[in-house]
């Protein structure tokens, strides 16, 4: 008998939705022409591409001409940061980010540091949240770029984007980039009005779309460098034949994610609380990194003096897939920079487990997960709990 695997690693990646796969197939079968071609088939796939673009633009409250399709979150983050910094050196050379960003942001910023940019990192408190006072103090007249993730991928902390945007726009000419890879489709995020971010990164495979697809969107036309040179696709900023099927799939996944966002958030919050209640029962043996103020779909906790890997394996044996802090850093032996930033007690640094919910998770899965968690805890911490 085949065993039903409970997949609770949706922040690493998600399984594409059936209807998204369906659309992808149809586009590949019927609208495979190059959207830059001038024959009728090209015109048709270009029309479809425009519609996909408009749909994403609508969701983010911007215009279609400000939406770029990319290969994913990393490309979007790289392109936003390098492009916005390098093309605005006339405004200054100071960059501000936080110490708990995704590596695709931190490494880009490091690259810029080597090129002579002056970089400051905002600290976070034990809840993983920056201080607006520190932001206010560190934003300078010559700050050209502030990059901040909306929801942290390792423990779900939410940064106060709207308030931050206000401070940044009031006291500098900096562009404000938000890495919304983990938040899009889970929390409301858009350019909305003059007070929002200037630039947003989104990834397709975190919202039940495909790997290899992402979006970089701008609030308005900005000074920004092209980074893939060639045939001048994507408004001349990112050359290369546009992957219409991926764009359509992402657009559809985004629509479904946003339409079902409130219902799912309610569900996730309920599961989150149920599991937290159980975790509180283990008292001293468990420390919960996530906070109730954080995102509803990510729950990170750590087990005293135990390696995360051990828990993962024990869970896996029982057909439950969870993760250490993040997929990117899980293969490295050193403690993740996010965990370091949270100032965790030494006893809890090694044993961080992240569970993350997605559209395919059911109530039964959670009931089952809680039983298995209890089993695993008994196995390792039996004498203590």
């Amino acid at each position, binding site marked *: 008998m085949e065993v039903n695997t409970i997949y609770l690693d949706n922040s690493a990646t998600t399984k594409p939705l059936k209807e998204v796969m369906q*659309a992808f197939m*149809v*586009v590949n079968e019927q609208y495979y022409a190059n959207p830059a071609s*001038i*024959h*009728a088939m090209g*015109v048709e796939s270009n*029309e*479809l591409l425009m*519609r*996909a673009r408009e*749909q994403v633009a609508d969701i983010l409250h911007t215009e279609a*001409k400000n939406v770029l399709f990319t290969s994913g979150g990393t490309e979007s983050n790289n392109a936003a940061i390098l492009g916005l910094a390098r093309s605005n050196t006339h405004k200054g050379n100071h960059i501000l980010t936080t110490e708990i960003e995704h590596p695709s942001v931190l490494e880009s910023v490091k690259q810029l540091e080597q090129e002579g940019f002056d970089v400051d990192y905002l600290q976070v408190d034990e809840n993983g949240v920056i201080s607006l006072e520190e932001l206010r103090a560190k934003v300078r007249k010559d700050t050209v770029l502030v990059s901040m993730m909306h929801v942290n991928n390792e423990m779900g902390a939410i940064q106060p984007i709207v308030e931050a945007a206000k401070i940044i726009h009031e006291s500098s000419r900096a562009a404000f980039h938000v890495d919304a890879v983990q938040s899009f489709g889970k929390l409301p995020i858009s350019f909305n009005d003059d007070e929002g971010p200037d630039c947003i990164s989104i990834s397709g495979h975190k919202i039940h779309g495909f790997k290899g697809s992402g979006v970089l969107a701008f609030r308005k036309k900005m000074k920004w460098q092209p980074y893939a040179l060639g045939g001048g696709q994507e408004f001349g900023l990112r050359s290369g034949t546009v992957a219409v099927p991926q764009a*359509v799939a992402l*657009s*559809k996944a985004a*629509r479904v994610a946003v339409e079902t966002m409130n219902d799912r958030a309610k569900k996730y919050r309920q599961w989150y609380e149920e599991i937290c209640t159980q975790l509180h029962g283990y008292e001293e043996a468990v420390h919960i990194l996530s906070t109730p103020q954080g995102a509803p779909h990510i729950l990170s906790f750590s087990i005293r003096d135990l390696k995360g890997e051990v828990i993962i394996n024990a869970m896996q044996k029982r057909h439950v897939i969870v993760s250490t802090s993040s997929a990117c850093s899980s293969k490295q032996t050193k403690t993740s920079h996010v965990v370091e930033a949270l100032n965790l007690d030494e006893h809890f640094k090694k044993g961080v487990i992240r569970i993350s919910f997605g559209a395919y998770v059911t109530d039964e899965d959670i009931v089952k997960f809680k039983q298995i968690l209890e089993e695993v805890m008994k196995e390792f911490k039996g004498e203590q709990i």
Partner: protein
Amino acid sequence: MIWKEILIRYGELSTKGRNKMDFIRRLRENIRHAFADLGHLHIRTERDRMFIAIQNEEQMDVLVKGLPKIFGIQSFSPVAACEKDIEAMKKLAITIMDTFKNEQLTFKVEVKRTDKTFPLESHAIQREIGGYVLPQFKNLSVKVKQPDIELRVEVRHDATYMMAQVIPGAGGMPVGSNGKSLLMLSGGIDSPVAGYLMMKRGVRLEAIHFFSPPYTSQNSLEKVKVLANELTKFGASIRLHVIPFTEIQVLIKEKVPSNVSMTTTRRMMLKVADKVREEIGALAIVTGESLGQVASQTLESLTAINAVTNTPILRPLISSDKLEIIDIAEKIGTYETSIQPFEDCCTIFTPASPKTKPKLEKVEHYESFSDFDELIERAVKNREVYIFPKKEQEADKFADLL
């Protein structure tokens, strides 16, 4: 909802003596037409201003977004209303002034008390409201002469009305108040801008496009349709006449020396356009020509081309630089469409070195060996006409995919 109505101040038409009522009627109809989706609007007109009653927030949003595109409006203001109670009035004043909280501004309160039974006199109301608002907004300071904002309060019999925001309109005159013209719409950057500028001066437009399949693609025609549709956003419907031009162009290529073929082509286009103009009862022809921009737009070329008709040819861009034209095209939203790279009827038959100073007699001489008139008649007769904005959307074949 606090909003009650929108007050519209007329543009230039206020100065136009006897035709004024005509203009106002025209503006009212254009507004109704542009916002037909909102259902029937209650519009009240006065000599110097017009009021649109607001039924819900959504209506308000659509109007505030759309009114700046309608010609004939100098500016407009959302008007709020509340009970005739000084506390309610103070509260409303705060809500209204909150719109300006991000700027350093000077302001004053203007009070008009139409309802003399209201217990407080104008000055007292002014003091009460001003004194209440001022300490709550650090960005405001009082200035009695020419302040940045006037918070206008009017105590009428039915309610108290209040407004402060003044949103600039598009200026110009209501489309249709200055007759009808035929726009030569090529699909490039210039002609939609020329059309827009004429609409701004109150001209109602029809458009004509020359289509030469298979030398020009369906794409270029689609592009022109999109442009025609874009222009309808400025408050009027547009009919697009598509002329089958291949036959004429082929004959020109065969019979006329290549260095003047371009001049002849333009002359034939103008002849066709003039016939269409006559049929539809338009008074003038509008083009996007800008002096010296290309070989066909030198004074010599314009003279040779213009010689085929006595109809007034309006060239609103004649003295504009290309960059100025692009600026307007971007502002009105036609630029992105215009720069799509499809072959159009002007570029495909362009000779390598057209004469920039064609001689009229020579051009006429070369043309005299062929009978173009019959072809022109046929082209005019066989034209296809499209009406914009399109009333019904086609079935959406992409809906399932997105």
